[in-house]
């Protein structure tokens, strides 16, 4: 009998469902769960899906250095990408720079990387942050690494499509610049999410529960996906898929 679904596996399956229909998916550095989700989406798609895992030779198809990811996104050749944030607010603004008054932030994170660009260019950006606390989900981010929405005059083929956290899955309404809670992960409640979120969001009175992956999906995650992701993230694979 298969062992029960791990939290990581639930997240992988949930993210993979958000990638349905994508032909090309790019995954940033230090992203084992999004990476696994992209590989699962590829595994389960009936049509070919191209996945690039950045900074892993053999795991991607770049020959021009990492500028190629950005150019490829601008060419319309990247359908989906994942972004996170040290802070994320209710309008899907993300902050990868730091806490407090810029520039002498009292807490400094690495920096904005490509977010200020890819958030504009990639049609389906999926926000992913496991930690779901009021430290992360704030009323207003202290620094906008990349804005959630832009005025109509701004060229912006891309933007936030959905958000997955350790507690639930959200969709994002660009016109209203608001998240909507679509499902709560097994073991948590709407109250858990509301108490740990620093901004308002839409939701049903009784939100759906995030479905656990079915047996075939779990088998795919633990089989080919685990094997493939181990090439880029051996430590992650060892911890989550010890049997693989």
């Amino acid at each position, binding site marked *: 009998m298969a062992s029960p679904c791990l939290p990581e596996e639930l997240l992988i399956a949930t993210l993979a469902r958000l990638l349905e229909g994508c032909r090309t998916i790019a995954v940033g550095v230090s992203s084992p769960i999004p990476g696994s989700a992209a590989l699962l989406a590829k595994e389960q798609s009936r049509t070919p899906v191209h996945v690039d895992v950045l900074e892993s030779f053999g795991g991607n198809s770049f020959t021009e*250095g990492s*500028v190629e990811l950005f150019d490829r996104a601008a060419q319309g050749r990247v359908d989906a990408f994942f972004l996170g944030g040290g802070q994320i607010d209710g309008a899907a603004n993300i902050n990868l720079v730091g806490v407090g008054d810029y520039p002498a932030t009292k807490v400094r994170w690495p920096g904005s990387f*490509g977010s200020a660009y890819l958030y504009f*260019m990639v049609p389906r950006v999926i926000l992913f942050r496991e930690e779901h606390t009021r430290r992360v989900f704030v009323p207003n981010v202290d620094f906008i690494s990349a804005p959630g929405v832009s005025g109509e005059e701004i*060229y912006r083929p891309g933007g936030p499509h959905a958000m997955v956290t350790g507690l639930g899955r959200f969709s994002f309404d660009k016109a209203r610049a608001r998240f909507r809670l679509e499902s709560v992960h097994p073991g948590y409640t709407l109250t858990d999410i509301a108490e740990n979120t620093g901004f308002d969001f839409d939701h049903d009175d009784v939100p759906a529960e995030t479905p656990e992956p079915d047996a075939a999906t779990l088998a795919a995650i633990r089989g080919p996906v685990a094997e493939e992701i181990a090439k880029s993230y051996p430590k992650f694979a060892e911890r989550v898929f010890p049997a693989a």
Partner: protein
Amino acid sequence: MTIEFCDSVEQLMAKVPDGAHLAFAKDLAGAPMAAVRALIRAGTKDLRIVTVPTSGWPVELLVGAGVVSSVETSGISLGEYGGAPRFNAAIKQGAISIKDATCPAIYAALQAGEKGIPFIPLRGVIGSDVQAYRDDWKVIDNPFAEGGGDPVLLLPAIRPEIAVFHARRADRNGNVYVGIQRELTVLAHAAQETLVTVEEIVDGDLMASEESAAAMLPGVYVSAVAEAPRGAWPLGFLDMYTEDEAHLAEYAALARSDEGFASYLLREVHVAGELESA
């Protein structure tokens, strides 16, 4: 166009003057750690650093050693070892000035430098605080947009005074193997001088065949080369060697305090370096 072959990394890095505008590529493309240590030992001051487009260990060490006055970057991180403690402390204290950028902006500005054009447009970015805090960037209406409107960001070209990177090998004409780390090519094209450390200097012409030439930075862009075996240590380098995990973990622990960092600097840069270059 004369390539100088330096006898030591010390000699190579002695070419960097105080106040130089210095560029480093991202760590994964080959962090020139031996060069960074030599630069600290040289006592070179007030370095203005731009990272292509990110960095980690080189900037962390240089900032910690107090030889940096400003950093333009899209991200500084020690990867699995977490945030960059000395860099972050310097930011908090306002000890260095920071120009936050975004990766494609640094690439585009560097490509503008490569092409000798004064500026280059870039989509996106508008409305971010990355843009809001960059008074050296401009927004104009796209002159080609019918009916006006369509704001677009313009970035001034970046032409670093000196690029420093570590590579696999060079031949005696100064041709440097870069493989698919082509940010190094763009960087060397855009920079006024390029100083390279390599794992080895080899005989024979690495540009001799078309297949090998495709992986090369031609020597015409290279000012000086020094051999530095394991020159990325304690970091790993491509498929040649893996990172020194114990060393890096010890650094991350020590660098939490000023005293810890000072002891690291003394032991691993100054004392070890004197032994190295003796």
